[in-house]
């Protein structure tokens, strides 16, 4: 009996290591898939590869900690997953593309509207100096704040509030990511975007292809929008 307990005690860490090794393998495979998707969609996104920084950030964030426990096995599949309250954790490819579109620098301060599980904020936290993130659904915001704290993302601050008004105390922001824009681009957010800053708004129902709206503000404060289609799809055949 004692031998069995000792054997079990020895085996357990190996099992954990095996799980970790398996996750690392899945993570690598996912990164390769993301780069393939980036190459395939270069004509519409303007990016043939995701930058090393974005890839490193995605590699370093344990996505399995941001999905419900029953979905851990699917954490590194390139698809959106439900996280409760009718919300999803975005597809890793979309996370990578949105992060890339923000074109952030190490010293930047970024605002995220719609924290969800906190995964996107964690990815951004690896790339910028500070991430301010706002969640409107209380249970999601509270669990995301706790999770980010436990995982040591000290440069992320979560606030429970209506993201429409942004976070004026920390404005202006170098980049803003709005995952819950509603039917218009909130004017307070436009105001809180630095001249030269970039705002990304994914548009689409849960589990749907996300049309990414890139809002840019030039040095004179003039705002323009661009639609970035994340699918390598051209609606016209070559027959014309």
């Amino acid at each position, binding site marked *: 009996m004692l031998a069995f307990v000792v054997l079990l005690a020895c085996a357990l860490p190996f099992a954990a290591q095996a799980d970790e090794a398996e996750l690392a393998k899945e993570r690598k495979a996912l990164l390769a898939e993301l780069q393939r998707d980036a190459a*395939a969609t270069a004509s519409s996104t303007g990016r043939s590869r995701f930058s090393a920084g974005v890839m490193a950030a995605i590699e370093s964030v344990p996505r399995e900690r941001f999905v419900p426990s029953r979905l851990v096995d699917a954490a590194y599949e390139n698809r*959106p997953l439900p996280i409760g309250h*009718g919300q999803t954790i975005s*597809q890793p490819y979309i996370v990578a593309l949105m992060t890339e579109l923000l074109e952030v620098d190490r010293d930047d301060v970024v605002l995220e509207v719609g924290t969800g599980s906190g995964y996107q904020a964690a990815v951004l936290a690896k790339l910028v100096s500070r991430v301010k993130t706002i969640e409107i659904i209380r249970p999601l915001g509270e669990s995301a704040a706790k999770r980010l704290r436990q995982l040591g993302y000290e440069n992320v601050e979560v606030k*429970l509030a209506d993201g429409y008004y942004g976070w004026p105390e920390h404005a202006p922001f170098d980049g803003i990511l709005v995952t819950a824009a509603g039917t*218009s681009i909130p004017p307070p957010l436009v105001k809180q975007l630095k001249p030269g800053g970039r705002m990304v708004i994914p548009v689409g129902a849960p*589990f749907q292809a996300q049309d990414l709206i890139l809002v840019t503000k030039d040095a004179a404060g003039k705002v323009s929008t*661009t639609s970035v289609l994340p*699918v390598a799809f051209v609606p016209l055949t070559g*027959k014309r």
Partner: protein
Amino acid sequence: MARSERMMLAAAIGLLAGAALAYQVLLFRLLAIIQWQPFAATIISLALLGHGAAGTFLALAGPRLLPRFHAVFALSAALFGAAVPLCWSIAQRLPFNGLELVWNPAQLGWLAGLFLLLALPFFFAACCFGLAFMHARERIASLYAADLLGAGIGAGLATGMLFLLPAVEALRVAAIVGAMAACLVPARSGLRLALPALAAAVALSLPQAWLAPRITEFKGLPRILAIHGSEIVGEHSSAYGLLTLVRNDSIPFRHAPGRGPAAIEEVPEQIAVFTDGDGMSAITVWDGRRESLAFLDETTSALPYRLLERPRVVLLGTGGGGGVLQALYHDARAIRAVDPHPTMLALARARIPDARIRWHHGEGRAFVRTDGHDYDLVQISPLDPYGGSGAGAQGIAESHAFTVEALDDYYARLAPGGLIAVTRAAEQPPRQAIKLFATAVEMLKKRGLGPRDRLVLIRGWQTATLLVKRGVLTAADIASVRRFCEERGFDAAWLPGIDPAEVNRHHRVPRPWMHEAATALLGDDAGRFLESYKFSVDPATDDRPYFFHSFRWSLLPELAALRGQGGLTLLDSGYLVLVGTIAVAAMLSLALILAPLSALGRPPAGGARLWPAIYFLCLGLGFLFVEIACMQRYGLFIGYPLFATVAVIAGFLVFAGAGSLAASRFRGRGKSLGWIVAGIAALLAIQVLALPPPHEAVESTSGRIAMTLMLVAPLAFLMGMPFPIGLSRLAAEAPAFIPWAWGINGCASVLAALVAALLAIHVGFNVVLLLAAALYVVAAIAWYLP
């Protein structure tokens, strides 16, 4: 069998048929609330295979059950009653998420679980019908008549109940009524009374919380309710749908689709309105000050007001009243607001008191055909849901508001210089806006008018607005459009004299596909463009009223290869779900039809398996083809699709029931069948060529409903005859095959409903009717097979 027993059995069949059809109607309503419509249609279609499964079951086990007919009948009826609420309660707890299907095929397992559970009540009811046909085979025609009459009445009553009771309470009623059928058969009193009492107790005792619809968390309503401060302040349930009103005093909804990036105006307080838990629209709480409506001048749908001075406006589909407020903001001289949903209309009306507005309950299309007034602006639901939710789930939904003929009706009501304005979603890549433009081009060409100088199409980041002018657009009009786009941050996709440099400036897209499409559609190679665009954007017509359908098969491999980027979600899920359902239903039907054959052996007459197989298959397909095509066609005539659906279903079933009763006179007479089928074919030809009459031919809605019933009565009467005639022949030649034939007919009916929709998308409802005529002819040929 004694006369009184025969009467009681017929009454029991009628009662149960009514309850089963009510269950079908109510289940569809409830599934549409908890899921999206295409999934609801799929689940219910497959669940209806419970009829076919019962046929197979009885073909195998019927001879052993028949000696205990009364007891088995009573037990099955009671099981139906108990299963209706229980299965519903369990089924809606399964974690099925239709939106996840393209990402996670494991969801198919939950879908199968759903339809198997919901099929059980149909199975028990159909066991009663099949056993009764076997038990009283000399009275098949009258029993079948009772079945049809009961179902017809059940359809009408179930719809009526939806106006009086919440759908789940109506479900309890249907369950109890079905179980009561057990009381009418002369089983031992213990069975006859105890079983239905037990079933009724189950139906009544299930707590409300177990039955109340549990809306999928990915619909708009649960998502809004998850936000702190949101509370439901009203709920209105009817056959039109479940309307839920939500208020949030701390976090405003700010619902105003179509505003540009330059929008700065605050949106006033709003009450969110959800239909069946989704498709949010908003009732703006207006303080009476014009300035507080300024946000409505920031949407693409405000464009027509830049070209018109104090217009007379008719708004088709008012929803929460956003379009009405937009017209008031722009100082419209007179406003007619039309909406088919009476509760929605009343809600908007109560909050927008203004003497300039006349409110009308009805379908917009029917209204403009009979109203008689001319308007400066005909505008279609500018600020209501754009169908973005539910994964393109609208793809197989019919809409008679955006067809070539509909635009022609609107155009006919325009005063000189007047405008039609339609606002739709501006998806990437664009579909709806291009289809709308193609439809408008077709309408103008049919009128012999040049479309180039009469059309304007602009787009924002969410919406596109099309204008069609009665008359040629002037230089001042064009300048106004340009100014509006410049101020609001929109791009022109088409206007006379458009400069390619102005088509992709404010909201930049990978390529100006909308402009390219408009240019191609106005040029000489419009046909080639329609062929080469990867989505189907051909103009919608009344015969093929599928405005939201854009699926092409050639898309599937390409988008499947782009699955990792979310490519599959660009597809019309509604269409794919329909095709998938047909495939599954066909396979299951085949299995159900073939399974009992070896056990049944060959009938004594020898070789007689072929004629009943073809005969009952064709009848099942043909009957439903006609019913479904007529529902659509008479929807336009009556003006209220809901009334048309109920009138056509109930009318067909009741008159077919009468035909079935009359058929007892023709029993076994092959010559009569030939004449009957000839009559059906002739009446179908008349339906295609001359019916229904135009909407304005009859003045009142009740008159139009009565006319519909009169026009379908002779057809339905004849269509009710072949089935009992066939069963009677089978009863004489090979009685063991009766439940098998019944099952074939059940499977065919399920397939027919699905295939009719698929055919209508591709070839139109007229062809569906002609195919139905052909199916009846084939059935007649099968009858005469050696």
